[in-house]
Structures are given as structure tokens and as C-alpha cells.
């Protein structure tokens, strides 16, 4: 051990630490962990579920005659949406619950020179990027798994890119609400109770328009932000019928703002007593 008197000289001038720089450094830390330290974990967590959906619903069911041959085409936008949305949601909610309650890791970041709410926003941004990366990786896998491959007819690029950007933000915003509102002891229960309905009412496995004959359920799905992600991608990459573009935009942006605002407020409340 060196002598205790050997403190480093105060040679390095304290840099004028800007909040933007701190924000970016927090993102760097998260990307470093996700893509360098825990890449395997990230890929498994992100891809396993959508790959199984694609395989079972897109390949196995048509193969055994339990679903039409073209079901895969309907399914793919939904599975991409699900990857975008849930990757972002889980990567916001779970780490927050753990870091606030058990590891207290969040404390060091809350002491970084930026406003507390910005640390919450940063969580949303990073989780959204993870969702986008996951969705991009799903595409070539889908091409391998689905019998018809991936064939986007009439792709509308602005719509596709818009949903790819905003969809995961909506998921991360919902995740921020869950991650800050839920007590750590109840996280298992809440995840089961919230995630399963979100998953199955999000127009992922069926086009929204096809629910005409099940009107009440069609209305229920409109509460789920995931519906707008699924329908948005369906609108962008297929020629089938879908929810109107204006409604999709409104649902996506509206829910993102609503959940984002509640989540950031909740985060501030957890961060500053």
C-alpha cells in the first residue's frame, strides 16, 4: 500500500462538466455494459422470445395446418413491434427496480452533474436503442425462419423509420412507469400481471382491422401502446388493412408523451425524497 500522504496533486483542473456531457457519458456506460460486457445476455434476452414466436406461429402452425400459409406475413410486423416494445420496456423497468432497491447503483448516476429527471430520460433513450438493435437483428433471423422469408411489399420508409424510432420510446416510457412505480417486492407479480395482457392485446399476432367481429376486444386493444407499434409497422411494410395512419401517429406519440411524463415524474420522486 502506498503512503496515505501520496494523494494525487490537484494538477488536473476540474473540467466544466456540462449536463450534456454527463448525459452522454451515462449512455456510454449503458452501451458499454449492454454491447461489450453482457452482449450474450442482451441477445438472449432480446431475441429468444421473438424467435420462438416466429418459429411456432410463423413456421410450425402453418406447417401442421393450424394456421394459413400467409400468416407469417401478418405476424412479422407484430413480432418486430413486440421486440422493439418489450426490449425497451424490460430494459428500463427491470434495471431500475434492481438499482433503486437492491444494488443502489443508481446513486452514483444521480450524483453525476445533471438534473435527476435527465437520468430517467437517459434510461428511456438507452433502452429504446437496445430495442431498435434487437428489432434490426430479428429481420435476418425472420428471413431464415419464416417459410416465405421476409418480403416487404410497398415499404413506406418514413412510416417504417418513424415507428422504429418512436415505438421503442413508447415501450421504454411504459417501462419507466413500471420501474419507478412498482415496489421491488412485488415486481414478479406486477410483471406477470402487466406484461402478459400487454403482449396479447397489442395487435401483435393479428391485424387490428380483423378484430371487427370482436368489437369489445378491438376497443380494448386501443388502450395498449403496443397496438400502435404493431399496426404502424403493418401499415409501413404490408398492403393489408390496418388502423388509420393518423390514429397510429396519434396513439404512438400520445402514449409516449403520457407514459414518458408519468415515468419521468415517478423517477424524480424515487430519486429525490
Amino acid at each position: 500500500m502506498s503512503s496515505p500522504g501520496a494523494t494525487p496533486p490537484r494538477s488536473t483542473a476540474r473540467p466544466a462538466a456540462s449536463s450534456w456531457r454527463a448525459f452522454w457519458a451515462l449512455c456510454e456506460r449503458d452501451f458499454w455494459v449492454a454491447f461489450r460486457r453482457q452482449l450474450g445476455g442482451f441477445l438472449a434476452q432480446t431475441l429468444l422470445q421473438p424467435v420462438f414466436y416466429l418459429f411456432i406461429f410463423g413456421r410450425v402452425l402453418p406447417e401442421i395446418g393450424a394456421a394459413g400459409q400467409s400468416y407469417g406475413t401478418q405476424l412479422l410486423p407484430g413480432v418486430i413491434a413486440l421486440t422493439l416494445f418489450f426490449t425497451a420496456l424490460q430494459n428500463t423497468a427491470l434495471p431500475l427496480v434492481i438499482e433503486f432497491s437492491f444494488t443502489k447503483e443508481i446513486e452514483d448516476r444521480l450524483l453525476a452533474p445533471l438534473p435527476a429527471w435527465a437520468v430517467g430520460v437517459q434510461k428511456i433513450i438507452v433502452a429504446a436503442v437496445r430495442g431498435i438493435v434487437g428489432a434490426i437483428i430479428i429481420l435476418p433471423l425472420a428471413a431464415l425462419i419464416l417459410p416465405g422469408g421476409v418480403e416487404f411489399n410497398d415499404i413506406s420508409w418514413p412510416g417504417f423509420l418513424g415507428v422504429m424510432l418512436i415505438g421503442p420510446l413508447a415501450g421504454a416510457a411504459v417501462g419507466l412507469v413500471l420501474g419507478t412505480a412498482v415496489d421491488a417486492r412485488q415486481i414478479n407479480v406486477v410483471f406477470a400481471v402487466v406484461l402478459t395482457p400487454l403482449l396479447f392485446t397489442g395487435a401483435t399476432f393479428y391485424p387490428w382491422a380483423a378484430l371487427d367481429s370482436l368489437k369489445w376486444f378491438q376497443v380494448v386493444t386501443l388502450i395498449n401502446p403496443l397496438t400502435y407499434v404493431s399496426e404502424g409497422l403493418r401499415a409501413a411494410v404490408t398492403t393489408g388493412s390496418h388502423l388509420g395512419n393518423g390514429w397510429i401517429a396519434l396513439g404512438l406519440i400520445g402514449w409516449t408523451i403520457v407514459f414518458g411524463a408519468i415515468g419521468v415524474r415517478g423517477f424524480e420522486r424515487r430519486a429525490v425524497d
Partner: protein
Amino acid sequence: MAPIIDVADLHKTYAGAKSEAVAGVSFGVEEGEVFGLLGPNGAGKTTTIGTLTTRVRPSSGRVVVDGIDVVADPVAAKRVIAVVPQRPNLDRSLNALENLTFHGAYFGFSRRDRRRRADELLAQLGLEGRGDDRVDNYSGGMAQRLIIARALMHDPRVLFLDEPTTGLDPQSRLFLWDQMEALKARGVTLLLTTHDMAEADRLCDRIAIVDHGKVIASDTPRGLRRVLPDAEGLELRLASASDPSSALAALGSVSAEGDGEDEWKVRIYGSDVAPGAAIAAAEAGGARLVDLRRIEGTLEDVFVHLTGRDLR
């Protein structure tokens, strides 16, 4: 010169709480001082530190660090402070070195500067060569040293330490004491909370004793020791069927405490109580001596005197 930490009439009631966690705390810390906050569990120490470190919003009162109003401008305050928390909060997804370099990055240090500072601090805190270790594999003492290294990464002017040596082995504790003294020598202001009276006595220039959300005494360690009715005296353990204090009252101010089984602990305060006279007086009163020791005023005595013996 204005104090570097200035807390004035601080109140805090947590949402849903019935009583105030902090009920009017005021104190000032001069630059370069080591200031100790002492108090039983739940006295309001951690809440007070929380308001100074931007993590707790005061219900009322003023909290200023280095001329910055912490409530009005928390971001500016965070640039000049650092915190060593009560419970380890290292980033377990990162190795030890990365814990330091990313912390440096949050504060805007260039890649080269943060690497250099991290290496220096690892060496300074006796963690040389352990930078690539996972922090999960660190012992309690090593983790605490790494947390201190992390706190020093951005060269804070004020360092807050919340029970920094609780649960550490004596070697780690001595090492951290040396570190804190070195920091003080460098002009860093330290505010620490502790239950360890020896620690407070050794390190602190001044101490505030906090109880029930209020500062009940504030002075230098020496000044505080004088708070006791009499800092010195004798303590006798006596076997006696009845309270023996009346037989000893002539020798000085006496306090007696029975254990309910005919054994009494009697304290006679005063600097010139003769042990022989005390034994003689006790035996004359029908008591039998079990044990005798000299008491000197310690911070612990002062602490217990001021805050009582009740468990919190």
C-alpha cells in the same frame, strides 16, 4: 469567510411520515474542517446528509455548499461534492477500474485524464493491480476503498461520508482514517457521520450530536467531553442489599444503578475521589466491593449522557 457548508433551520418531513425526520438543524462547517455528525440510528443524520447531497428535498430551511444553494441549483452542487454512502453502491456490471473511469466521464474528464486519475487513485487506496477485478469479488474493505477512490475521481471540494468505517476490519479502518487525514491535509472538507466515538474523537475538528432531528450539542471533541457533570471519577461495582449511594454521597456527585440482583453500579464523579475512601465508605454502608475502575470522560459517555440509553 463564509462556511463551506451552511445548514440553517433545516426541516424535513417525509411524505406519509407522522413526525419530522429533521426538526430544525443548523450548523456550519469551515473549509478544510472535518466535521462529525453523531447521533443514534434514526436521529436525522442521513436525512441531513441527503439534503446536502441533493437526494432529499428539504421541507424548509437553507442548505448551502460552497456558496451554492443545493435546492436551487443541485447540478452545480453535484460538481463540488462527493458521497461515500452507508451501503456499497458500486456498479457491479463494471470492473473496478471502469467504476472509476466512467465516474470520471460523468464529470467531463477526458479519456486520458480519467485513466490517469483512476490509476493514481487505485494505487493511493492500495488497490494497485486490482483494477480488472469484478467488484463482486471485492472484500468489504476493498469495496469501501474503491468507493472512496470513486468519490475522489472528480476532485470534490466537500466529501460526505456516511458511516464510512462501519463493518470494516481494524486494518481497513486505520487505513481509511489515514486517508481521511491526508484528504484534510489537502484542504478537502469532510463531513462524516459515525457511531464510532473513537473515530469521531480522532478525526473530527468539530462534532454535532443530533437526536430526534435536532442538534443537541455542538463543539470540539474536547469541548464536548466537558459537557458531562464531571468527566472523571470512579465506578464501583458493589454487592449490597440496598442502594449504597447514600453511603457514598459525601465523596462527590453519585449515580447508582441496580441490576435487581443485589449488585449495583455506582459512579462517583469528581477528579479527586480517593479509591480507598470510596471503598471504606461503601463497606461502612454494608456493601461489599466487587470491582472498581477509574472513569475518564469519553465521547461515548457524553453521547450516552446526551441521548440516553433507550434503544432506537
